């Protein structure tokens, strides 16, 4: 039974009723949250690598080759663990089905790794079948560095820290290895509809 706070009314605006997970509120802007400085990487030095569970590099694209992969336009709702949600965000990116499609693996997990050392872990099944992208355009513009550009992971069905900014690769793994935030108190899976924010949720 929740404690009632005397005199609290609240805003009661619910423009996204049914679309906003529990404990979240809608924003119109696009807040920035990162654990450290925004990396500065020249596009000619950028690549996206896939490493399989044996440690072998099984795919690599430079920036130009990455842009030649078939890109999809996706419109999705995003939910940050810090409580804001944003509806109907438009992205362009390469489906993870395309990126991982030609790879023979029995791995059940994947760790995304980024410039600056950030990592996040996901079940492989959660990034396949049209559920995840490596996105490089946002609202018809190149993705800004502070929002993860040149490219970030986009996994909209999980809290947004799983959508790793500045992504540089994917490492397939037999073991589920907690990533950066997952190691310091945040939930291992992060389903916003089950409000899986922190350890023990």
């Amino acid at each position, binding site marked *: 039974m929740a404690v009632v*706070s005397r005199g609290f009314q*609240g805003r009661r605006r619910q423009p996204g009723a049914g679309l906003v997970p529990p404990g979240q*509120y809608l924003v119109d802007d696009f807040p920035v949250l990162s654990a*450290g400085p925004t990396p500065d990487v020249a596009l000619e030095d950028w690549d996206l690598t896939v490493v399989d569970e044996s440690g072998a590099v099984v795919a690599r694209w430079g920036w130009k080759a990455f842009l030649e992969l078939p890109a999809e336009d996706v419109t999705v709702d995003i939910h940050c663990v810090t409580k804001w949600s944003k509806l109907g965000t438009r992205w362009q990116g390469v489906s993870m089905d395309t990126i991982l499609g030609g790879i023979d693996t029995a791995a059940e997990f994947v760790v995304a790794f980024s410039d600056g*050392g950030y990592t996040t872990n996901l079940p492989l099944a959660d990034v396949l079948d049209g559920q995840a992208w490596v996105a490089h355009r946002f609202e018809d513009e190149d993705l800004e560095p502070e929002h993860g550009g040149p490219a970030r992971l986009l996994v909209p069905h999980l809290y947004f820290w799983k959508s790793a900014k500045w992504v540089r690769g994917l490492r397939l793994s037999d073991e589920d290895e907690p990533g950066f935030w997952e190691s310091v108190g945040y939930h291992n899976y992060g389903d916003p509809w089950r409000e899986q924010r922190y350890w023990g949720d």
Partner: protein
Amino acid sequence: MRWLVATVAETVPETARVVTLRLDVPDWPSHRAGQHVDVRLTAEDGYSAQRSYSIASPPGSERLELTVERIDDGEVSPYLTTEADLGDQFELRGPIGGWFVWDGTDTAPVLLVGGGSGVVPLRAIMRQHAASGSTAAMHLVYSARTVGDLIYREELEALAGPRRAVTVTLTREAAPDWAGYRGRVDAGLLAEVGWPPSVQPHCYVCGPTAFVEAVADALVGLGHEPGRIRTERFGPTGA
């Protein structure tokens, strides 16, 4: 993580827009300096709203303190800053976040850079430094708009000492007799009052996004290792 009941035991006005709430929270499991909590307000009909706030008090203090800035079109901060009174109750859970923290056992120098109410978790770190008798050098560089916007002004002056320095800069207006710095925290100020990268300080930067982006970029530009720079940002919607 469990919701706990917090009871307002004391309210301390800090500025025209900022209030510190001193809270009694039975079963509070203690925390690390720099962590935050989630606050949940519930109305009589069950409607509720949640927001996150940095913890202003160091671990081990008698009461848990939250320092909250009123966001005029916000939903939770107007209640906490203007409505909440002695004996009022709300729920919170935490502590949250194991990255933007300082424990007092590390002897490396610590550079704290705060903008506006971004000083709140840094104040917890400063007080933890004082309470633990740490021998690490610590320097807080704090930017506010005007003298009237300075949070914890007297306390920070009192905390300054041989191992704890405080530098304040005002970005909007300063009285003619203002003896501190003027203008934004930029590479020039950080080069002058911060430490050179060779000292390898741990850097903690907290404030609005534009502030954190600018300061973190300036620190990297001065040669500080990106991996030693921890940031905590809140957007304009952090109501």
